[in-house]
């Protein structure tokens, strides 16, 4: 990538954390893109909001609990985390249930933000 080129990347997370590998793979790509000094934002909608649920205990399913990684994103200058309000509500969740600080947006606001991106990757 040529020096000084910075694009707006949005990673759209729409899947629950452990039933498929998408959530973990998304997180890997987010960390890679952050290393390339890009303008990264993450959106969590539909079942993707479950990725941020507090209190995940994965010992019983013998799988790595990767949810603490969301808290480490700040250290990689990934600070734009957006959650769709409607997705939270449909699942009985509120902002207090999430392990990181996020910006809660309406569907329309989120749609507008997606429109502003150079690259949108959906997981």
């Amino acid at each position, binding site marked *: 990538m040529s020096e000084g080129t910075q694009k707006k990347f949005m990673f759209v997370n729409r899947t*629950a954390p452990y039933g498929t590998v998408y959530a973990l793979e998304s997180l890997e790509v987010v960390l890679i893109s952050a290393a390339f000094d890009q303008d990264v934002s993450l959106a969590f909608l539909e079942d993707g909001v479950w990725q941020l649920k507090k209190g995940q205990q994965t010992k019983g*399913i013998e799988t790595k609990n990767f949810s603490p990684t969301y808290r480490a994103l700040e250290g990689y200058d990934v600070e734009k985390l957006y959650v769709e309000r409607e997705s939270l509500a449909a699942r*009985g969740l509120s902002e207090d249930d999430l392990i990181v600080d996020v910006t809660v947006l309406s569907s329309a606001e989120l749609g507008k933000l997606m429109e502003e991106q150079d690259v949108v990757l959906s997981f």
Partner: protein
Amino acid sequence: MLHIVNKSPRERPSLDACLRIAEPGSLLLIEDGVYAAARGSESAARVQAALDRFKVYVLLPDAEARAIADRLIDGVTAVGYDGFVDLVAGHRNCQSWL
């Protein structure tokens, strides 16, 4: 019959198909299927409504991993892997709604 649902109720219509078609019996929610029993969710109302027709079980390790073990709706029974085996062994047949 033991009916097993492993998909999120909002990702796929597996649970709804099961509840619509299956004869009364037992229903075991595993993997992403456990989200259906999360209190306050839209799907929880549908599971609640099915409790008079189905004995509903939730695989606890899957609920713990997804941080909903402490918010399962009343009336469902949490089971471990040993309980899963007992359920399969204790029913004449089972059906996985993939």
